[in-house]
């Protein structure tokens, strides 16, 4: 049974796609039980998902626990541009950034085992960072006015940062423990966007060609028109990395007051990506027949090896919970993620001789730090093992300047409910989360030519379940 569960868990995990659910591209919803309580679980950490929420928690767990968590997300992302170019056909209900299919599965797997009264070990495979946004509403040959207006700022982003984390925990005392997990972090990043924006970099190209195309005319004005003679291009940058990371947790349980205090730190990780950049261009553009050869522009943008670097933030969480009243547990977490580490992604191209791909192209994001407040309650019952409810406030780290198709982000309120039921040595847990992202209007002059200013209206439904199998001593 255990092996089958592990295999199922691994298979689901391998086939998953991820979506950003918490601040920017952080994912905190990695345990169904925790999420029923609004994710306020750092001071509880009494199931195998403690490997993610607080590694110190596994020191208090008996026997062998196998847990598989599955999360399904329906993200409804809408963008209403405030000042698109003349003639743009904006859908009446805005541009959709939802991925297809709408149901995004996110799966995680945890295992814990006590070795002796002092030591416990565990293993987790989980995805604390992920992103999946897709504003690609077009084919390259479509009329330009029907294409997503912000495509030059990005059309598709996909990030999966998977932590494969062996963990050990030590009981410092009867009431306290310390846990440490060391992880290999496998990361895959993909960014797609359109290039040769006639309102932006296309004009730089136009400025260079102005003396040849329109000799004697105002070069700045000429550049604006020449930019419209260019084909439209698409770029895709994709890379992977394997980097180290670690988590540290501390858990203290005050028996008399039935109060727990938990601390958790998950390290920042710098990802050194290796991958490829590829480019393609439409067969349009008045300038094309007059260039030295039909593939002049393609030669300027050769497909090539690429390297890049970015850093995912560290997490600092403090939690407190109390189980003294109403046969319930009330929990609160406060979490900080230092997203200010995510300031830019330098992309280093390998073919820079006689091409238009630079030695380095840096994508700036300049995130700030984010914080989250988690509050939850779990009520233990007789027929149903427990019911839960929770609330989360999540303050976005994304500044207005960086809000766009890659990060259509805003602060958000979430309300969660959940329940668990025992079936022999198995426990099934369900949760639902309604996530309302605050409508966000941006008006950043430097984004005018990217056409990412406007209103972002987002909502997400999250639902998940977990199956936990408990073998051995003191089965709860």
């Amino acid at each position, binding site marked *: 049974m255990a092996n089958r569960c592990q295999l199922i868990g691994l298979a689901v995990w391998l086939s998953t796609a991820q979506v950003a659910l918490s601040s920017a591209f952080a994912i905190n919803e990695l345990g169904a039980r925790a999420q029923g309580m609004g994710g306020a679980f750092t001071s509880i950490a009494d199931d195998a998902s403690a490997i993610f929420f607080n590694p110190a928690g596994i020191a208090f767990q008996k026997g062998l626990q196998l847990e598989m968590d599955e999360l399904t997300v329906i993200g409804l992302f809408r963008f209403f541009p405030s000042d*698109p*170019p*003349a*003639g*743009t*056909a*904006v*859908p*009446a209900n805005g541009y959709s950034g939802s991925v297809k299919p709408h149901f995004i599965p996110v799966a995680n797997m945890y295992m814990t085992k006590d070795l002796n009264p002092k030591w416990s070990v565990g293993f987790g495979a989980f995805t604390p960072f992920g992103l999946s946004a897709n504003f690609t509403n077009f084919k390259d040959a479509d*009329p*330009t*006015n*029907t294409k997503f207006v912000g495509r*030059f*700022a990005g059309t598709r982003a996909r990030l999966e940062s998977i932590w494969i984390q062996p963990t050990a925990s030590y009981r410092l005392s009867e009431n306290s423990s310390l846990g440490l997990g060391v992880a290999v972090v496998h990361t895959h990043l993909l960014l797609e*966007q359109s*290039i*040769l*924006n006639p309102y*932006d*970099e296309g004009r*730089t*190209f136009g*400025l*260079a*060609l102005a003396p*040849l*195309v*329109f*000799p*004697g*005319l*105002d070069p700045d*004005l*000429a550049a*604006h*028109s020449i930019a*419209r*003679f260019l084909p439209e291009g698409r*770029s895709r940058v994709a890379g992977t990395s394997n980097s180290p990371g670690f988590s540290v947790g501390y858990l203290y349980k005050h028996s008399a007051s039935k109060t727990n205090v938990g601390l958790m730190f998950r390290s920042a990780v710098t990802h050194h990506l290796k991958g490829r950049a590829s480019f393609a261009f439409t067969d349009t553009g*008045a300038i094309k*027949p*007059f260039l*030295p050869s039909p593939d*002049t522009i393609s030669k*300027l*943008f050769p497909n090539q090896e690429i390297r890049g670097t970015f850093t995912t933030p560290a997490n600092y969480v403090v939690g407190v919970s109390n189980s003294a009243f109403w046969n319930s547990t009330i929990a609160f977490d406060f979490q900080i993620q230092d997203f200010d580490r995510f300031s830019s992604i330098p*992309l280093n191209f390998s073919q820079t001789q*006689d*091409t*238009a*791909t*630079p030695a380095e*192209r840096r*994508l700036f994001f300049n995130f700030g730090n984010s914080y989250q407040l988690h509050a939850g309650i779990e009520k233990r019952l007789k027929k149903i093992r427990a019911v839960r409810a929770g609330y989360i406030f999540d303050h976005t780290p994304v500044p207005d300047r960086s809000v766009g198709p890659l990060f259509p982000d805003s602060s958000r309120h979430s309300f969660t409910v959940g329940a668990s039921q025992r079936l022999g040595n198995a426990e099934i847990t369900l949760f639902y989360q309604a996530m309302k992202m605050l409508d966000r209007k941006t008006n950043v002059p430097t984004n005018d030519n*990217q056409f990412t200013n406007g209103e972002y209206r987002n909502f997400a439904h999250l639902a998940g379940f977990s199956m936990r199998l408990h073998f051995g001593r003191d089965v709860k």
Partner: protein
Amino acid sequence: MRKACCLLLLSVLGGGASQQKKLDVTTFVVLGEGLAAGMADFSLRDVYQDKSFPAQMARQMKTIFPQPLIQSPGIGNVPGFPSLPVRVPTTLQTTVRTPFPPYLFVFNLSVPGFRVADSINRRPSPPLVQDRDAVQTSTNLILGFPALILGKGKPLWTQLEYARQMNPTIALVELGYYDVLEPAVKGDPSLLPDVAAFRTNYSTILATLKGLFAQVLVTTIPDPMDTAYFTSLSGATRLVGAPADVLAGLYKLHPSDRLTVNGLATIGSQLQVNETGTLPAGSVVSAATADQISKRVDALNSEITSLAQQNGAIVYDLRTFFRLMKASGIQVGSKTLTADYLGGFYSLDGFYPGNTGHALIANELLNLLNQTYKESFSLVDVNAVLNTDPAVRFTPAVKRPGKGSK
């Protein structure tokens, strides 16, 4: 190209629908015939092209407007006057097209002598100069230059294809005038375009432009009968000195007949030497013919208006403007311009306006854009244009007192 690459390094990678109705004048493309091209005084040449109403609009809108300027004495023939063989280059011409090296693309795609069907079908073809075909030579020099001299494989676009390739943000369509002008000048209504065929072709043009998501501005077709090329017998007195009833008697004319510029010139010459004879063909247009032409113009304009509505284009009623000019003229500073021959509005050919006329049309269109798109384009200083406009200085010869009594 190397420089272009370097500059690109700086910038690449940076970074039920409702269509946005706002004006972007980045690329202003004009599809037209002689009127929008700036044809005046029997030919297309740089001094008038520079003052064509699209060119004056572009200056006010502060956008580039590369034109295929032709060195004087220009190219092209005009209906109603003898056609001359194409001589390019001729005396005073060097490169013919200016500036040189030429613009790779032009935005004023108007070709003198173009009918609506030509906009869709006629494309440049070698050789560049075709001495028996002025319209084809004009097409080559406007739409096919420099493609025709750059070797094989370069695109030879029709006017409409060219417009599509320019990816305009705003397009102006001034077509149809030549379609009715030639039949009017020849006094032959059978040459007038078939309304259904006209509609089909015009629809193709507007649908294509609509597909480019440009803001499209169309002008209705002026009625040739409102132009200075056609003069009533009473109006002729001012030019030839003889009263209408005398002219009617001498040349067996009906009081409602209209005299063409050629007719006026012939009558003037004959009266000067006191010899009257038969007027050459094309000198007189009967009221019935004029009425037929005007009605067909109305029918064509009705189609233009209807198609414009269907395709989201805005319409400027150029026909009404010409009619008002005919009815009352216009005061510019201390000068009153009229639609009479040598009245200041039209150039010497009688149906293409002079520089001031183009300035007035430009201002009408700018006003329409300002109203439609809440823009604030300043208007052309018509007085300044008038002061340098040859058309304004042309006036009928005045009989000097006492000179004729000798």
